[in-house]
């Protein structure tokens, strides 16, 4: 699915050059569930952003479905992103002014999909994550767990082949966190590739493989038995 070779990312401010990722080599197969762990500032989010094509590497190669996208422009990346990748964030990032259904529909809005089909797919995915009874509510009227379920629905409604989740349980209590993890697991079982950044070892256990990052380096990779 994706392959990174000698991937480096440096940030440059006026005075300092910070190396966020240093010679990272990662391979992720179609259908995998990968957790990325590591302390704050180790480069987890940078890695996730590059995987999600929200950021570009400074050097090295990034093959996405056998296509080297390392040198692609923002617009080119945008096209690949919207057809392949769904996002889930720690703070949900729902749009306050839009209802639950509208928030989910947003992910289809920028594809050429007729309105009727959009409605159908949104309804289907809301059933799937169990939020259909809240379709007309605004995000502020929902609990954190419900908000994150909306976010999950939004990430998958476009039939994305890969979901990137940035600490999806970080703002949730244990029970709701569990719920979201089970939902991700179910999606993975249906064939969706999932890459997740997390601090929680127990949630990392849902993944089949864990990549540990430290100061921009991949330090260990462990496979679940």
């Amino acid at each position, binding site marked *: 699915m994706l392959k990174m070779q000698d991937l480096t990312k440096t940030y440059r401010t006026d005075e300092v050059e910070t190396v966020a990722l240093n010679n990272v080599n990662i391979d992720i197969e179609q259908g995998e569930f990968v957790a990325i762990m590591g302390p704050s500032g180790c480069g987890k989010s940078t890695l996730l952003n590059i995987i999600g094509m929200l950021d570009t590497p400074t050097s090295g190669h990034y093959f996405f479905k056998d296509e080297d996208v390392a040198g692609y422009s923002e617009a080119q990346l945008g096209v690949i*992103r919207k057809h392949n990748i769904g996002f889930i964030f720690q703070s949900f990032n729902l749009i306050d002014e839009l209802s639950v259904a509208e928030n989910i529909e947003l992910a289809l*809005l920028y594809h050429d999909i007729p309105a009727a089909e959009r409605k159908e797919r949104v309804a289907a995915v809301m059933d799937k994550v169990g939020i259909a009874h809240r379709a007309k509510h605004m995000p502020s009227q929902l609990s954190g767990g419900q908000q994150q379920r909306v976010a999950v629905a939004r990430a998958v409604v476009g039939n994305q082949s890969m979901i990137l989740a940035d600490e999806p349980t970080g703002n949730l209590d244990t029970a709701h966190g569990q719920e979201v993890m089970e939902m991700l697991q179910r999606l993975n079982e249906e064939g969706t590739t999932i890459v997740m950044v997390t601090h929680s070892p127990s949630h990392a256990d849902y993944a089949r493989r864990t990549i540990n990052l430290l100061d921009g380096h991949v330090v260990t990779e462990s496979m679940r038995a």
Partner: protein
Amino acid sequence: MLFTNYILSAWRNILRHKLFSAINVLGLAIGLAAVMLIALFVRYETSYDSFWKNADNIYRLQITFTAPGREPNPAVTAPTLIAPFLKQDFPEVTHVARAVPLNAIFIQDNNRIQEEIRITDQDILNIFDFEVIAGDIETALSDNYSLILNETLAAKYFGNENPLGKSITLETRVFTREYKVAAIIKDIPVNSQVNINAMIGLFESDWADDEALFKSWFRSYSFTYYTVKPGTDIANINNKMKDFIDRHYPSNLSGDPDNKPSDEVSLSSLNIKDLHLKAAGLGQQRPSGDYGTIIAFTLIAILILIIASINFMNLSTARASQRAKEVSIRKVMGAARTNLIIQFIGESIALTLISLLLGLVIVEISLPFYNELIGKTLIIEYGSSDIGNILIVALFVGFFAGIYPAFILSGYRPSENLKSNKSAETKASINFRTALVIVQFTISIALFISTAVIYSQIQYTKNFNLGFNAENILLIKGIRDNEVRDKTGLLIDELKKLTDAINVTSTSITPGVYGVTASNMRTPSMAEGKTVLIGDHKVGYDFFKTFGIEIINGRAFEESRNEFEASDVLVRQGNAAVNSMVINELAVRQLGFNSAEDAIGKSVSGMNYLGGDLTKKYQIIGVTSNIYFESLKNTVRPEMYVLNPYFTSTIALRYVGNPQEIIENTRNIWQQQFPNIPFRYDFVSDAIEEQYWEEHGQMTMITAFSGLAIFIACLGLFGLASFTAERRTKEIGIRKIFGAEVWQVVKLLVWQFTKPVIIANLIAWPLSFYVMSRWLESFVYRIDDMVIIALCLIAGLAALLIAWATVAGNSYAVARTNPIKALRYE
């Protein structure tokens, strides 16, 4: 301590949000500057003649003649015969005085200079409190050899010498007499319609040789001023004027036996303070102001203030979310809501005061240009109440612009705002802002449409086919002077010899001047006693050729035929010659002929005040198209032209080549013939331009202020757009992550500001159409109402384009930022 904390917090807020503060301050400064400029103009225009001590009780009597078939002809003067009856008939009237304008030639050594002076009743001293500098003003008007001069004239004729007791010779149309300077008065301020440079006492016996001055009920020669007892309701006097006229007038104007004098003559009185803005008639002593213009400008000033205040409110509430945290922390620390309200209103007032300072700078810089534009000399008097008034307006604006944001901001609940993940904006405050933007754009669009309509009307007037060719005609004035009159023929012959002169003629009417002379005419086919009033103009040979007027039927006057109009004297002596006349198309209809062709050769008689059965006989020899010598505000009227160079007042010369050269050559010829008489000239095109000069100046003003209003509105929109974009960064980031492209984001943001502009258009269009179609009705010749509709569409499109341009740049920048930046920090 709390107070310094407020000031510190306010100051830091201003510095921290430079864009916000700059937009707020600049918008308000421009707005206040515009309001100050307009206020100066309005104050000046409304200040006329309010400085007289008894101003509240001084009135001017004005007459309007309405001849059957003609429009009412209002004058600001009245016949000299009326004044004595005023005091006699109305017990409320305390003093009455006439001031008759007189062109007198002041002869001193060998210099002859024409001055306009007034022949005045002595009672005028009880009406106006002239400031006497020297001499005895009371006795000066009690004999007929004393002269009162204002300072300017005293200095002009006597320099630094003491003028009292010195003599100067005055040549009038009736007598030449030596006058002694008996008193000097201070110049009457410029903001007055009582323009008196010099006065001599009024003694009717002096003018016995003048045919009409103190004999006519139908020629309004004198400004007639009177005072009433304090508390008098002028309506009481105005209402009694009908009876007054029927009681005193010996006859009506037309001679129509069915009409009472009061059917054709009306008298009204205007308070002296209203003379400048509300006088309708001709003959004002200084150019009149226009009441409608004053109202329009006041309205524009208020609208500009509203737009600028709305900017303020919008930007402050938009920024509210950013200050929510400060509010919450202050509340947690124990601030009561009132403390916060005071703080925010204080901040608003502080910003207003900074704007005011900047506004004053703008006013001072623009005043010279502004003065040139409107032809006045307005200044801000810093020592006077001006500054106080301006401060009050600024504080008022600061208070009201600050009060809404203050209540919104101070109403935040700390528990809600200290949680990081909540938007502090409520739907209500967003809707309120949208409503304010709609108001701003409605005003801007309406101003845009109004300006465009006024402009179109002026262009229409400029391009109107006047029926004659106004280019390349030089006018030489002053040939009524006794000395010149007899030599006019010689002068014209000399002028014709100039190589650059094509045609030369003389005329009693010239373009740009209101032609009031008219005569009662009748044709044999009219009912007994009926007449129609036709404009009666005296011209010389080649009049039509010189002005390029088309003769559509018949012919012009020909030198070989000797067809001069017989004088009244000759007619009285029994001269029964038939005079030739040329009439215009309207006169053809008025006199009852079927067509121009039909009119040729027909006879018409003139009943020109000769009394009895004496009439002048005319035969129509030619018909011209209707020509528009007067402003297009007046309708074209039936006119007749007769060959009578003796009563012409101006020589008209059509030339080719350099205008400066023709002026020099003409001046040389004039000075050879009349070395003592100043050469006065004008160009027809200038005279026409001058009629619209005031409108053009006001047009420029309205355009400038409308432009400013639109600019301020855009400034606000720009600020609001950038805040909105900032507020929506998270949303934009999310949309981009889920596939939105830059143009789609721009479209989203731009559309947000398109809706209010469209709604504003829908409100502004009918409003502007209603107001501007009413305004156009004041013009006899005007553009079609459909033009307003077209201009509405153009204004709407322009407003959209301007709004888009204002919002799009900012939106594009926001849309392009990497979404991870928007989502990383919240």
